[in-house]
């Protein structure tokens, strides 16, 4: 009769295995392929925040606040966000320079450029435009503002920081925004940029 008890034991173990299996499955599912969707979503919202700031003249604080919101929201889901943004505004200041060639006068405008570093580390930043270059080290969770002189209503500017070196074409007389976003969870990393 020994064999029958072994069989009953085996049967019991298998039944327990089948009963316990569904309980071991996770109840809330969130695969890693949601990172690109989240990145697209967040990048689309930054220009909206920027415009809210334009209307209320507090772009820096709104962009900082939104960046904190994104960081804290994603941290709850084990997603690490690294964000870097740069924006310019035409200042009310206006200065004239004389062209070196023919004695005729042309005018340039001063634009205000602001950088926000939320990459989780200090980064060197260099903005190179035809007439001026500006280098600085921006601390983590810090912003930096400076004035640049630009000539012409359209200008190209190269933004050199630790993660990327984009060259963007911006319009002098309107607000311009560049955002770098990196989302990481486990081994998955998504990097996206936006210039608006």
């Amino acid at each position, binding site marked *: 009769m020994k064999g029958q008890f072994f069989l009953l034991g085996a049967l019991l173990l298998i039944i327990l295995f089948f009963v316990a299996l*569904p309980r071991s499955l996770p109840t809330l*599912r969130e695969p890693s392929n949601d990172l690109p969707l*989240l990145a697209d*979503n967040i990048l689309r919202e930054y220009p909206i925040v920027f415009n*809210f700031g334009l209307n209320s003249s507090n772009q820096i604080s709104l962009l900082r606040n939104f960046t904190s*919101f994104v960081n*804290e929201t994603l941290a709850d889901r084990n997603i690490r966000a690294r964000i870097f943004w740069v924006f310019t505004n035409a200042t009310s200041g206006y200065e004239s320079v004389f062209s070196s060639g023919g004695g005729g006068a042309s005018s340039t405008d001063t634009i205000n450029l602001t950088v926000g570093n939320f990459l989780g580390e200090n980064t060197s930043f260099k903005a190179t435009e035809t007439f001026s270059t500006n280098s600085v080290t921006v601390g983590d969770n810090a912003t930096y503002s400076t004035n640049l002189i630009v000539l012409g209503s359209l200008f190209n500017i190269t933004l050199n920081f630790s993660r990327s070196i984009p060259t963007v074409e911006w319009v002098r007389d309107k607000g311009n925004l560049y955002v770098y976003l990196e989302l990481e969870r486990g081994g998955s990393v998504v990097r996206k940029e936006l210039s608006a």
Partner: protein
Amino acid sequence: MRGFWFTVESVIAGILVVTFMGFIVTRSFTPPEDDLTSLAYDTLKQLDDQGVLRPYAQANNYSYIDSQVRGVSYGHAVQICSLSTCVGSVPNGDNVWVGTFITAGNNLYAPREVKLYLYR
């Protein structure tokens, strides 16, 4: 008589082994379940494109957003979170998927995280 019981035992053991192996093989070749996270995100994005999501997220009106979720053949629930608080319900179940959509605000800055839960 002893030989008869040995035969019965071996048949039962064979049935158990075949059943177990069949279960393992079936699980190995079962295609993965649909990714409902993408469906949840697309649904929220569609609502935003229609202008339905943003104003009601700003007003924390999760029930209205939930009522606008259509064409989804799963159970659904909506939750809206700001940094300080969440409103709405989280369903209990064995298969619950969540898609997230972040909004900066509608006519003023009011960031919200809208979560759409899909479940079977």
